[in-house]
């Protein structure tokens, strides 16, 4: 492997430093990272605060969804019960699934990442703290408004996977489905913002020396988790966009009578939906791997094999989406491929299970509360995994499809794979953020009630399903032998709820939020999150030489606290962290980080407002909210995009690092590349949808606009992309004037806009409208996507022009310029790709 950076590893030998630290260094660090008080605390962006709010909100949604489940169980306890009318029951099970999957599980693991990752990596914070705050507030405001729809009878009622044609306007004429489509689409954006933050955080803010080989297993889990979000979520965002466009504008993506196909929704949904299970499971299993070694007081067996299992799961889980569609009549060979992949994906999970068993077997585990939750989760997850392999077999799948057997299976997997590990995590890490750890005695009661309740609910539910009771029915007839198992399940639900209630009592009695006066490392773990901490994370950033630094160097915590390592203070009086290289974590530069601000909060509120107001069709108010969101975002950007004075600072032991870098080395560049991958995935899934509709209903397709339009439009898009790159090159040239680089960029924006308008009008002139057919709908979806990117590129270019006018675009390189170049260049290339696809298939006129 060739060296990654010019940093000389011999410099590590200068640490730990000796001698007295300068007076006032710690006070300066504390001042830089101080959190505002009173109402201004809502503007805090420190990961300890935002992360905890995030965890609390996700847990609140877990409780709310749990209450819905309890009421549903009461309804099903006996045949022909009248607790919930049919329509309300439909809303309850839709909201239960939606809350658990979108508002609890994914945000919870993302939230745990925000809380734990910076400390575990010994970073001062994640690299984009305001983005974390924005993601949290968007989720908080959007989630609560979404839940409130239940009180007005407006909650979605088409199931958490919202299959058309049930959810089309013909069968769901109200705005209930729109709440789901716009609300969830918006919350997914929040998840993607979090994923970008986590990927860049894990790859670029690790402590020096923490190579990939020494990276904590939770960081690996979160890295794969976030990468999976980047690949999977665009698919469901596109799906929700298509369904909402069909409902709002009558574009027939899913209407087979006009060249659409309802199965397209299932493909788009499950391409996200099945990886979603692993998106939830991987971070939870990574937490288990972290805890198992601590609780067994030994090193994790098969650390590298678990990394391999994560990577394999990250890929193979994208090959199983159609196993949810075995009953739809796919070609038998396709069914066979998906069945094989569905069985294969259980192997990496098995590797993890055996690694945990081996670690517990060779260690000396103490059966405290976290251990109980870990072992109970392992047992439950394995049972869910076994039934998972059963339903991967096609004949069996056909038998139990859409029965309560599937409900039991998925709850075994999700509660064993995510909920029990989450409670173990609460007990294990509570000492990090609370003055008092949670009660061991009460925790054991919590575990046994939840564990027993879980088995009592869902074990008999397998039988209920095998006896033929379908899912999503609000009642059943007496005399079909379904009463006993249903009653047992309902009793179990209340036992489970008692466990959760007792946990709340434990929280109320013992949890007292604190950062620098916490209970500490109660279970004796060996990783860096247990270093002494403050609002600034660790006092200094240590050099990592092993997987368990605190076990291998008993004095590390003391030396870190004395400021003997990297960045012992605020090098130039602001919030800073060390950016390191992605493979070997060699120090590269010092990132200046933004402090508290109301703009992310306001941007989140107005973004949520835009989507939610759109749902109730108050278009003027929605547009006003959208404009305010854009203004808040630009204001936030303007603040963080400070005037740059490139230089070097001493990061400890006389080592000088730059304070500003550009291009592929900068963390902003990485974030933009990931964002472009997200948009590229939408393009890819759109291409799949285009070819899919053409494949199933070619009789509805006709040639596009005249062939003569193709070359100028194609050349126009490519010219715009080229001009953007040319502008960036001009910036580096000494002989260029103040305005020449920005002018090239503005020309690029003008050409993009003009070409897009020509593209759009040529399609309109061809007579193909969005309502006409599946082809018309998908072509207009592409045009809408391209139009949106062109509009964003235009806003970015205007922003850049303003900065240029103020003399804020530094030479020879500037990060803002780089990012606008990347985005504009991508928009041009995407336009060219869409032009070729839509005009060459099925052939120009």
């Amino acid at each position, binding site marked *: 492997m060739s060296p990654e950076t010019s940093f000389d590893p011999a410099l590590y030998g200068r640490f730990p430093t000796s001698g007295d630290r300068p007076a006032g260094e710690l006070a300066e660090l504390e001042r830089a990272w101080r959190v505002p008080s009173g109402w201004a605390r809502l503007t805090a962006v420190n990961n300890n605060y935002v992360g905890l709010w995030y965890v609390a909100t996700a847990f609140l949604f877990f409780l709310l969804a749990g209450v819905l489940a309890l009421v549903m169980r009461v309804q099903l306890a006996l045949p022909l019960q009248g607790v919930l009318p049919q329509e309300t029951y439909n809303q309850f099970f839709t909201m239960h699934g939606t809350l658990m999957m979108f508002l609890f599980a994914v945000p919870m693991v993302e939230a745990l990442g925000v809380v734990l990752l910076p400390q575990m990596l010994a970073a001062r914070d994640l690299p984009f703290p305001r983005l974390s705050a924005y993601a949290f507030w968007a989720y908080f405001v959007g989630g609560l408004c979404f839940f409130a729809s239940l009180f007005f009878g407006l909650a979605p009622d088409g199931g958490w996977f919202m299959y058309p044609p049930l959810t089309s306007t013909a069968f769901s004429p109200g705005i209930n489905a729109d709440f789901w489509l716009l609300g969830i689409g918006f919350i997914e954006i929040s998840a993607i913002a979090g994923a970008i933050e986590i990927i860049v955080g894990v790859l670029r803010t690790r402590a020096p020396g923490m190579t990939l080989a020494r990276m904590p297993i939770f960081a690996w889990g979160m890295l794969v988790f976030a990468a999976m979000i980047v690949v999977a979520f665009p698919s469901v965002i596109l799906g929700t966009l298509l369904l909402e466009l069909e409902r709002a504008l009558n574009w027939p993506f899913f209407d087979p009578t006009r060249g659409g196909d309802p199965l397209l929704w299932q493909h788009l949904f499950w391409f996200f939906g099945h990886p979603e299970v692993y998106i939830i499971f991987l971070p939870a299993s990574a937490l288990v791997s972290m805890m198992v070694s601590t609780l067994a007081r030994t090193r994790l067996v098969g650390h*590298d*094999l678990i990394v*391999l299992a994560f*990577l*394999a799961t990250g*890929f193979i889980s994208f090959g199983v989406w159609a196993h949810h569609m075995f009953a739809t009549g796919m070609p038998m*060979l396709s069914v066979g491929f998906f069945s*094989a992949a569905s*069985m294969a994906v259980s192997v990496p999970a098995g590797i993890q299970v055996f690694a945990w068993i081996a670690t517990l077997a060779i260690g000396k585990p103490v059966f405290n509360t976290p251990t109980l939750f870990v072992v109970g989760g392992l047992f439950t997850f394995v049972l869910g995994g076994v039934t998972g392999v059963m339903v991967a077999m096609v004949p069996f799948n056909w038998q139990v499809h859409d029965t309560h057997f599937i409900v039991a299976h998925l709850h075994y997997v999700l509660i064993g794979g995510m909920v029990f590990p989450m409670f173990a995590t609460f007990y294990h890490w509570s000492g990090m953020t609370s003055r008092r750890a949670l009660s061991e005695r009460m925790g054991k009661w919590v575990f046994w009630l939840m564990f027993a309740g879980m088995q009592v609910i869902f074990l008999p539910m397998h039988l209920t399903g095998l006896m033929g009771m379908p899912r999503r029915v609000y009642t059943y007839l007496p005399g079909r032998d379904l009463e006993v198992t249903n009653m047992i399940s309902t009793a179990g639900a209340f036992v489970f709820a008692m466990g959760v209630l007792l946990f709340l009592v434990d929280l109320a009695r013992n949890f007292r939020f604190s950062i620098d006066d916490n209970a500490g490392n109660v279970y004796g773990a060996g990783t860096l999150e247990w270093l002494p901490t403050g609002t600034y994370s660790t006092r200094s950033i240590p050099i990592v030489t092993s997987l368990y630094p605190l076990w291998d160097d008993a004095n590390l915590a003391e030396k870190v606290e004395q400021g003997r390592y990297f960045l012992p203070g605020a090098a130039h009086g602001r919030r800073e962290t060390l950016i390191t290289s992605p493979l070997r974590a060699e120090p590269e530069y010092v990132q200046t980080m933004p402090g508290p601000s109301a703009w992310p909060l306001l941007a989140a509120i107005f973004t949520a407002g835009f989507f939610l107001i759109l749902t109730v069709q108050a278009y003027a108010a929605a547009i006003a909210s959208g404009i305010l969101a854009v203004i808040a975002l630009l204001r936030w950007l303007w603040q963080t995009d400070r005037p740059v004075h490139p230089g070097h600072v001493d990061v400890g032991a006389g080592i000088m690092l730059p304070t500003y870098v550009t291009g592929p080395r900068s963390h902003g560049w990485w974030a933009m590349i990931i964002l472009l991958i997200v948009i590229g995935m939408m393009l890819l899934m759109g291409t799949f949808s285009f070819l899919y509709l053409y*494949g199933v209903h070619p009789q509805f397709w006709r040639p596009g606009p005249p062939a003569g339009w193709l070359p100028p439009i194609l050349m126009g898009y490519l010219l715009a992309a080229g001009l953007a790159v040319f502008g960036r090159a001009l910036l580096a040239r000494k002989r260029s004037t103040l305005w020449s680089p920005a002018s090239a960029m503005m020309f690029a924006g003008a050409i993009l806009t003009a070409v897009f308008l020509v593209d759009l009008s040529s399609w309109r002139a061809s007579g193909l409208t969005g309502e006409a057919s599946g082809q018309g709908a998908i072509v207009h979806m592409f045009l809408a996507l391209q139009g949106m990117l062109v509009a964003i590129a235009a806003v970015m270019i205007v922003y850049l022009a303003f900065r240029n006018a103020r003399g804020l675009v530094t030479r020879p390189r500037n990060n803002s310029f780089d990012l606008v170049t990347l985005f504009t260049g991508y928009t041009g290339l995407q336009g060219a790709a869409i032009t070729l696809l839509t005009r060459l298939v099925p052939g120009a006129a």
Partner: protein
Amino acid sequence: MRAWLYLLGGMLIWAIDFFALYIVASVFHTSGTARLITLAVTLLCLCAAAWLARSAWRRAGAAPNPFGRWTHKLAAWTAAAASVAIVWQGLPALLI
């Protein structure tokens, strides 16, 4: 980027194999042509993954430092696991 492509090479080959098989089955359904192309794609991808596993394993032995050794080993394991998965993925074409 090159390092990541190398580390994930095996799994990327698996992904190419899987999506190629999906397209083949979608276009040619359950036919003789589909089985033949599946076999060809499977063998091609298997060779690529096996070659990557072997070459990474050899480089692991010659790596000058622990991190290099770790990287080559992980790449070798990933490619070896992918080889097994590719064979498994191709079997339905022979059995159905």
